[in-house]
């Protein structure tokens, strides 16, 4: 871009909305909005983490038994997959910010692919707990809280059989809300990948890439806490 063109685009950049003085001010406003949204998300998930904390204090044994029934190897694998997706997302934002336009969409697609691997693993993980709840009348191995819950699969009876259902309620609730965030994130990533493929973003203006990156990293952080709290209670 010649200096003259650069100067002209500073005055009338197509992405600059009329209420902002310049692109920097616009970027700061958008970024602030995203951070406030994330702050709200911290408290949204925070309610579930607080509930978890209370019940883990009250029923430590049941939580330990429930946690041992989850496969920490699957959780470990998914943690690495999600961290890798955060890396590709960060590389996507980096490529947009440093003008490597043709790489942005590629990195975002890699992020989507890794996110899909995570969700696919989650699908099988959920399946083996949910499938036994349907079909023949025995429900052996059903781990969905409710009247079909099979506490004998966990060698529990009495009060602990009820308490471990609280663990599985929190397991499905917290990982489910987390997965929902990814399911919402993936189409947004697809849209941004499409737009970056069309060449909408430049080092001067790539705020949408940055903001979807913030969202994706936040979802990663939630999992960083969910993994040890759900899969690694007590010793394995």
């Amino acid at each position, binding site marked *: 871009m010649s200096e003259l063109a650069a*100067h002209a685009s500073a005055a009338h950049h197509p992405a600059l909305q009329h209420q902002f003085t310049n692109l920097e001010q616009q970027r700061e406003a958008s970024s*602030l909005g995203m951070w406030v949204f994330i702050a709200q998300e911290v408290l949204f998930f*925070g309610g579930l983490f607080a509930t978890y904390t209370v019940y883990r204090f009250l029923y430590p044994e049941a939580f330990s038994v429930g946690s041992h029934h989850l496969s920490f190897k699957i959780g470990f694998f998914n943690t690495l997959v999600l961290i890798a997706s955060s890396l590709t997302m960060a*590389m996507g934002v980096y490529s947009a910010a440093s003008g490597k336009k043709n790489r942005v969409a590629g990195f975002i697609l890699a992020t989507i692919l890794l996110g899909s691997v995570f969700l696919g693993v989650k699908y099988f993980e959920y399946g083996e707990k949910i499938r036994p709840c349907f079909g023949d009348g025995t429900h052996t191995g059903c781990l969905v809280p409710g009247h079909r819950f099979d506490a004998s699969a966990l060698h529990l009876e009495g009060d602990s059989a009820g308490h471990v259902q609280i663990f599985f309620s929190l397991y499905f609730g917290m990982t489910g809300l987390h997965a929902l965030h990814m399911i919402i994130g993936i189409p947004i990533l697809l849209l941004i990948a499409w737009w970056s493929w069309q060449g909408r973003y430049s*080092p001067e203006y790539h705020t949408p890439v940055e903001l979807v990156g*913030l969202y994706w990293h936040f979802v990663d952080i939630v999992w960083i806490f969910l*993994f040890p709290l759900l899969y690694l209670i007590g010793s394995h």
Partner: protein
Amino acid sequence: MSEQLPSESQPTHPRGHAPENQPAHPRGHVVSWKVYLAVFLVLCALTVITVQVAGHDFGPFNLVVALGVAITKATLVVLYFMHARYSEKLTHVVIASSLAFFVILVFLLLADYLSRPWPLVAAG
């Protein structure tokens, strides 16, 4: 940490024009990709550590390590992947306030639950 590759540095004007001639450039700090790769490797290493530690029984120390590692990992993601280290002060205020309110939420909830007899027995 904040080294810039030559191609990413601010446009330098060969004929020595003053900086005010530059386009309004977003302040977004461009960090070298090597930093991201390093953060990624540290995150993987910490994940391995947290799984290894969970394989042994250290009593209450297990929870301390699990949360310590998770908080360290989250901090790395916020500082580097989310660029909080290079963002405006107002962003720092938003991050700090969200954490402060989360601490209030958990603290008051536990202050209530842990100061009562449990299980609560209904009268009669």
